């Protein structure tokens, strides 16, 4: 196994609002290795993006706070860094791609400016060297005629091209870890496939570790070596992609799999999990999935299940799994 680059231990990030404390991330642990893609899967509002923003320490303050846990990047606990030290990690060591390429580029600066800014800041380059780095970043993302594109403004480019530019910004300073927050959700299907292939290439060339946030199991199967399934602020199951697909253990994971529409099975309705995820403000005392779980028992209502390793690298938090 290659070197672990990021290790998150028992991360807790809460939002303190007038209506109460929202436990958006409540004890999340996982690790990502060099050159590996780790998928973070789950419904909307289950804490995937909050986990990502916590790693960057960019929660919207003062409401959002990291209240506990450790985040080790290459051995350094990010939560112990000063604000200024953390800022220098961003963009250089860790980068992130946001969901919507139409809004994540600044409309009044050229593409080249927006990449050059990072290059100047983190690599301390000046003059022509900056342009060279900008062009090589654009090349890495296979953007055609980069010398021309760098002089364009975002509104002159298509959505797919913009998302490549966002990728080029993220990769411009050769980060060790890249967080991709549903980077293909806003793209149409053909561009999506292209973008994913492109990413695998980028990873092969740079050996960057990727956290891929998505709700799409198709994307997971295509991109990720290992997956963490999140539910209501917790990772309920972690395993290799193969195992998750073949033998999902947690009832939530199985239910998620069943709700993926399949062409080879006829049916009147698409399967969906009954009920709603619990409010993160007011969590049930036992297992979080208990109210919607088809196999729940008494103990599930009373006590939260601990995480157990059922086979090497396969972790599940469920009373029913032994």
């Amino acid at each position, binding site marked *: 196994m290659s070197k672990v680059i990021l290790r998150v231990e028992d991360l807790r990030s809460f939002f303190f609002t007038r209506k109460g404390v929202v436990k958006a991330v409540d004890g999340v642990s996982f690790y990502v290795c060099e050159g590996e893609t780790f998928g973070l899967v789950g419904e909307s509002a289950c804490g995937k993006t909050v986990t990502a923003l916590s790693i960057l320490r960019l929660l919207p303050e003062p409401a959002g706070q990291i209240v506990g846990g450790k985040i080790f990047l290459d051995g350094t606990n990010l939560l112990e860094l000063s604000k200024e030290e953390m800022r220098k990690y*961003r963009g*250089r060591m860790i980068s992130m791609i946001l969901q919507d390429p139409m*809004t994540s*580029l*600044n409309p009044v600066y050229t593409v080249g400016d927006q990449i050059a800014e*990072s290059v100047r800041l983190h690599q301390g380059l000046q003059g022509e060297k900056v342009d060279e780095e900008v062009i090589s970043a654009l090349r890495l993302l296979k953007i055609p005629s980069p010398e021309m594109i760098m002089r364009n403004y975002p509104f002159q480019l298509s959505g797919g091209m913009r998302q490549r530019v*966002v990728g080029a910004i993220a990769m411009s300073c050769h980060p060790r870890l890249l967080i991709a927050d549903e980077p293909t959700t806003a793209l149409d299907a053909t561009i999506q496939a292209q973008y994913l292939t492109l990413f695998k290439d980028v990873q092969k060339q740079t050996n960057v570790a990727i956290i891929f946030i998505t709700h799409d199991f198709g994307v997971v199967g295509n991109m990720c070596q290992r997956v963490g399934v999140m539910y209501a602020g917790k990772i309920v199951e972690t395993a290799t992609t193969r195992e998750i697909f073949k033998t999902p253990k947690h009832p939530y994971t199985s239910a998620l799999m069943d709700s993926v529409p399949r062409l080879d099975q006829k049916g009147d309705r698409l399967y969906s999990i009954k009920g709603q995820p619990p409010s993160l403000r007011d969590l049930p005392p036992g297992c979080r999935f208990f109210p919607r779980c088809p196999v729940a028992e008494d103990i599930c209502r009373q006590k939260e299940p601990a995480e157990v390793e059922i086979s090497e690298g396969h972790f599940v938090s469920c009373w029913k799994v032994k």
Partner: protein
Amino acid sequence: MTRFIIVRLLQAFVALIGISILIFLLVRASGDPTLLFRTPLSTEEDIARIRADLGLDKPMPEQYWIFIKDLAHGDLGDSIVKRRPVTDMILERLPNTLSLALSSFLVSMLLAFFLGILAATRRDGWLDNGVKFLAILGQALPGFWVAIMAILVFSVYWQIFPASGTGGFTHFVLPVATMAFFLMPGMLRLVRSSMLDVLDSEYIKMARIKGLPERVVIWKHALRNALIAPLTTAGMIFAMLITGAVITENVFAWPGIGRLSIEALVSRDFPVVQGVTLMVAVAVLLINLLVDILYAYVDPQIRYQQM
């Protein structure tokens, strides 16, 4: 960019012709100027002679042609009351209005932008709340009342600043402060909300992800985007100021265009009203042109659409 400016200039010129026709017609529709010269002793012949003197006996198109021809020579006619060229009267007052307008504009806009941005970046902090309170106060208190209070406190009671007229720097303090107090709040709130919108956007999040220092995020990435909306309003405020701050000029006996237009309206001095209106129209057109050019400079999307 040059083409963009030329096109806008041509548009402004066409608008100007339209405005001149409108002013020409409206002034003539507002009443017969010869009535002002009529005395109980005037005969029909006297009236006809005055009419001929003023050129009002000629057909309308010819009158308009004369109006335009004189205008091209910078001649706006003579004041009926003062018997002096209107152009001279305006030019005499213009420096006073311009200096007052420019200084109030600069003071209020700089304050509005600075405080608005500070308030937005410290949302719901004490500074934000203080600034919001100040803004509401400035919008709620009528300008003339603030002006009178300012005179009472600073000229009558403490006698720090002169209450009226022009002269040195001290004469500017009270009128400028009053105008700024009146003009700043709206702008401040606009800048604050525009800035808040921008700060919520994904590209600001992206800028932070890139590891940029907060001052670069605010003053480079956010500010330029937040400028776009308030720019139009700033242009309109400036145009309004050029036409003379009617209330402020009157309260502080400031010999500017605002006071001139009030005097002219009260004494039904048609050529002066006509001249001032035309001057205002030209000023508004020029400022709009300037705002458009600034827009194109700030927002590349506009720049590219126009070319």
